[in-house]
C-alpha cells in the first residue's frame, strides 16, 4: 500500500477513536464540563497532562531545533520540563485543595478583588489564544504535508474535529481523548527514534545510543558526540557539545531563557487547570509525577534524535553528488523543507555554517543541469549550499531509517495528535474564562446551570473560530508571540499564586500592582525588541528570557506594595491556612 493510503487509514482510524471517546464521555453539568467532575484518576490525568503539554512544536520541531543548536537546545529541554517541579511542589497540591474551576477563580478569591480576577482572566485568554493559533496552523501543515490537501482545508478539518469533542465532552471528553492521543504521539515518536538509534549506534535505546559509539562507516567505534563535535567544527559551526561557542547565546541569556520557560510552564493556565480534575491533593501530587514521567519519555529521546539526525544528514548529503543523493532528499525537496543551490556549479552538495541563501526557498519552474529544482532566492556569500528546515529532522526520519510506509503514516497521526490535544486544552481555558470567570462570576451570579453549560459550549465554538481564523491567516508574528505567551505566564500568574499560598500577608493591592508591573515590563521589552528593532538593552537578555526578569519584578512589587497596604481580611487568611492542609479537599465545588 502507498504511504498516502496508509496515512488516510491511520489518521482516519485515530480520528474515529477520538470522536467515539468524546461521545462516550459527554457531560451534562458545568462541573463535568470544566473539571471533568473532579474524578480523573492520577495516572490518566498525568497522561492527559503530558499530551496537553506536548504541542505540535514539541513533536515536530524540537528535535530539529536541538539538532541545529547543539548544547543550547537544553534551553527547551530543561525549560519545558523543569517547570513541573515548580508545579508539583509549589502550586498543584494547594490549588487542588482550593478546589475551584479556573486560575482567575483562585486569583479573584485569594485577592478578594474583581479587578484582580479581571486582570487574570485577560492574561489567561491572551496567553491561550496566542498559543492555540500556532496549534491550528500545525494541524493544517501536517495535513498538507502528508495528505497533499491544502493547508487551509487541513485547518478546517482540525477545527471541526476539535470543536466536536471539546464542546460535547468539555474537560471530561478532552481528558480521555488526550489519553488516547498520548498513546498515538509517543508511539509515532519512539518507533522512528529506536530505528534510527539502532541504525547509527546499534543500540535500540535512544537515550543510551546518544552516548554510545558509531556502529559502522568511516567513524565506526568513535563516540557519536565526539564525532559530531568534530564534524561541526570542520564545517565551521561551534562544536555540538560546546556550551557557549561563537555566534551562540551567552551564559546569562541561556540562564534567563531556561528560567523564563520553566516558570512560564508552571504559570500556564491550561497546565494548571489539569490539577483541578483529580479527586484529591494526594492525587494532584501523584499526577504531577506521572505527567513529567510521560513528558520525559519524549523529552529525553528528542535530543538523541536530534544528534542522530544531524550525523546522518551531514554524512548522507555533505560532499555527495546531487545525482547520488538519497531518495528522501528528493521527496522532501518538493515541500521546500530542504533545498540545494549549486553555487559553484560542481554538482556536489556542500554543507557549511551560515545561510545558503536569503529567506525561505522559492522554486523556479526550471531544473538545473543536474536535475535539481532551481531557486529564485538571492545567494549569500557563504560557501554553504544547503537549506534545511528544522522540521525535517522528525518528518523525514522514518524514510531516512528506511521504515515501512505505515510508520510514516503514524508520524502524521502523531503530529496531529500532538496539535489537537494541545489545542483542545487551550480552547477549554478560553471558553471557561469567558463563560465562568467573566459571565458567571462577574456579570451574572444568578445564571442557571443549564445556561452556563450552553454558554461554555458556545464559547468553545467562538474560540475554535478565532483560532481557526489565525490558523488560516497566520499573523506574521506567530513565532514571536510564543515568547510573549511564556513571558506573560511567568510574569503574571506564577509570582502571585506562589505568594498567595506561601505568604498570608500578600494583599489585593500588592497582587494587582505586581501583575501590572510584571506584565507591563515584559510586554514593553518584547514589543521593543521584537517589533521595534531595539537591541536587547537589559543585560543583553533576549526577549524569550525576559519573562524571568518580569517575574522578579512582579515578586518585588507584590511584596513591597503588600507591606504598605492593609493586610488581607480574616476570611482570606483562613482560606490560605486551609489550603495548606490536604484533609477535606472534596471535589471541586461550584460556587
Amino acid at each position, binding site marked *: 500500500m502507498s504511504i498516502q493510503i496508509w496515512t488516510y487509514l491511520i489518521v482516519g482510524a485515530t480520528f474515529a477513536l477520538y470522536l467515539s471517546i468524546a461521545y462516550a464521555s459527554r457531560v451534562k453539568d458545568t462541573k463535568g464540563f470544566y473539571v471533568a467532575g473532579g474524578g480523573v484518576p492520577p495516572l490518566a490525568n498525568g497522561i492527559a497532562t503530558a499530551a496537553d503539554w506536548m504541542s505540535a512544536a514539541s513533536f515536530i520541531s524540537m528535535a530539529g531545533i536541538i539538532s541545529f543548536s547543539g548544547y543550547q537546545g537544553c534551553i527547551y529541554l530543561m525549560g519545558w*520540563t523543569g517547570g513541573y517541579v515548580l508545579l*508539583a511542589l509549589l502550586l498543584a497540591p494547594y490549588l487542588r485543595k482550593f478546589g475551584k474551576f479556573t486560575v482567575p477563580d483562585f486569583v479573584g478569591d485569594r485577592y478578594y478583588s474583581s479587578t484582580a480576577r479581571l486582570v487574570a482572566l485577560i492574561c489567561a485568554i491572551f496567553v491561550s489564544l496566542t498559543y492555540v493559533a500556532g496549534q491550528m496552523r500545525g494541524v493544517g501543515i501536517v495535513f498538507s504535508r502528508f495528505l497533499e490537501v491544502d493547508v487551509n482545508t487541513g485547518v478546517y478539518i482540525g477545527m471541526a474535529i476539535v470543536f466536536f469533542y471539546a464542546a460535547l465532552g468539555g474537560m471530561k471528553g478532552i481528558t480521555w481523548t488526550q489519553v488516547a492521543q498520548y498513546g498515538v504521539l509517543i508511539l509515532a515518536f519512539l518507533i522512528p527514534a529506536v530505528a534510527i538509534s539502532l541504525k547509527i549506534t546499534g543500540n535500540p535505546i535512544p537515550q543510551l545510543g546518544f*552516548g554510545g559509539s558509531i556502529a559502522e562507516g568511516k567513524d565506526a567505534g568513535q563516540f557519536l558526540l565526539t564525532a559530531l563535535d568534530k564534524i561541526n567544527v570542520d564545517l565551521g559551526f561551534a562544536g555540538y557539545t560546546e556550551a557557549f561557542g561563537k555566534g551562540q547565546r551567552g551564559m546569562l541569556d541561556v540562564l534567563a531563557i531556561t528560567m523564563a520557560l520553566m516558570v512560564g510552564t508552571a504559570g500556564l493556565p491550561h497546565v494548571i487547570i489539569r490539577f483541578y480534575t483529580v479527586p484529591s491533593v494526594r492525587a494532584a501530587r501523584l499526577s504531577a509525577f506521572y505527567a513529567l514521567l510521560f513528558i520525559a519519555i519524549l523529552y529525553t529521546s528528542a535530543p538523541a534524535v536530534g544528534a542522530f539526525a544531524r550525523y546522518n544528514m551531514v554524512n548522507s548529503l555533505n560532499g555527495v553528488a546531487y545525482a547520488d543523493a538519497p531518495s528522501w532528499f528528493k521527496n522532501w525537496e518538493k515541500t521546500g523543507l530542504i533545498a540545494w543551490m549549486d553555487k559553484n556549479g560542481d554538482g556536489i552538495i556542500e554543507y557549511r555554517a551560515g545561510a545558503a541563501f536569503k529567506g525561505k526557498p522559492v522554486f523556479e519552474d526550471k531544473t538545473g543541469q543536474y536535475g535539481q529544482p532551481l531557486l529564485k532566492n538571492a545567494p549569500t556569500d557563504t560557501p554553504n549550499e544547503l537549506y534545511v528546515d528544522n522540521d525535517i529532522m522528525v518528518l523525514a526520519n522514518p524514510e531516512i531509517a528506511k521504515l515501512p510506509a505505515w510508520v510514516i503514516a503514524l508520524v502524521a497521526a502523531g503530529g496531529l495528535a500532538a496539535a489537537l490535544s494541545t489545542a483542545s486544552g487551550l480552547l477549554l481555558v478560553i471558553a471557561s474564562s469567558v463563560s465562568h470567570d467573566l459571565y458567571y462570576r462577574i456579570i451574572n451570579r444568578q445564571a442557571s446551570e443549564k445556561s452556563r453549560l450552553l454558554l461554555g459550549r458556545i464559547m468553545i465554538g467562538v474560540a475554535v473560530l478565532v483560532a481557526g481564523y489565525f490558523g488560516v491567516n497566520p499573523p506574521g508574528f506567530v513565532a514571536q508571540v510564543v515568547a510573549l505567551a511564556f513571558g506573560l505566564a511567568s510574569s503574571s500568574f506564577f509570582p502571585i499564586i506562589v505568594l498567595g499560598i506561601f505568604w498570608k500577608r500578600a494583599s489585593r493591592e500588592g497582587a494587582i500592582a505586581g501583575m501590572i508591573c510584571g506584565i507591563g515590563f515584559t510586554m514593553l521589552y518584547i514589543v521593543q525588541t521584537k517589533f521595534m528593532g531595539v537591541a536587547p538593552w537589559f543585560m543583553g537578555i533576549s526577549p524569550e528570557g525576559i519573562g524571568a526578569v518580569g517575574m522578579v519584578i512582579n515578586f518585588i512589587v507584590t511584596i513591597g506594595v503588600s507591606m504598605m497596604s492593609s493586610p488581607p481580611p480574616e476570611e482570606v487568611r483562613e482560606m490560605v491556612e486551609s489550603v*495548606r492542609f490536604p*484533609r477535606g479537599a472534596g471535589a471541586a465545588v461550584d460556587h
Partner: protein
Amino acid sequence: MERYWKTNLRYMVILLSIWALVSYVFGILLVVPMNSIMIGGFPLGFWFAQQGSIYVFVLLILVYFLLMDRLDKRYDVHE
C-alpha cells in the same frame, strides 16, 4: 500543625535546591568545566543539560510525593 507546615517547607527547600543545582548550576553555570569529564560518550555538563536534569526532575517529584504521603499520615491530615 505548625510543625507539619514547617516540615513541608523544609522538604521543598531541599528538593528545590537540588532542582536548581542540576539544571542551573551543573547544566549551565558549570557546564564548561564539567564538559572536560567524560561519562561514556557524554561530556558530563552536556549530559546534565540534555538528559540528567530531566531524570532528576522526575525523581524529585516522586520523592516529594512519597515524603508528603508519609507526612500527611503522621500528622493525620490525609484525606
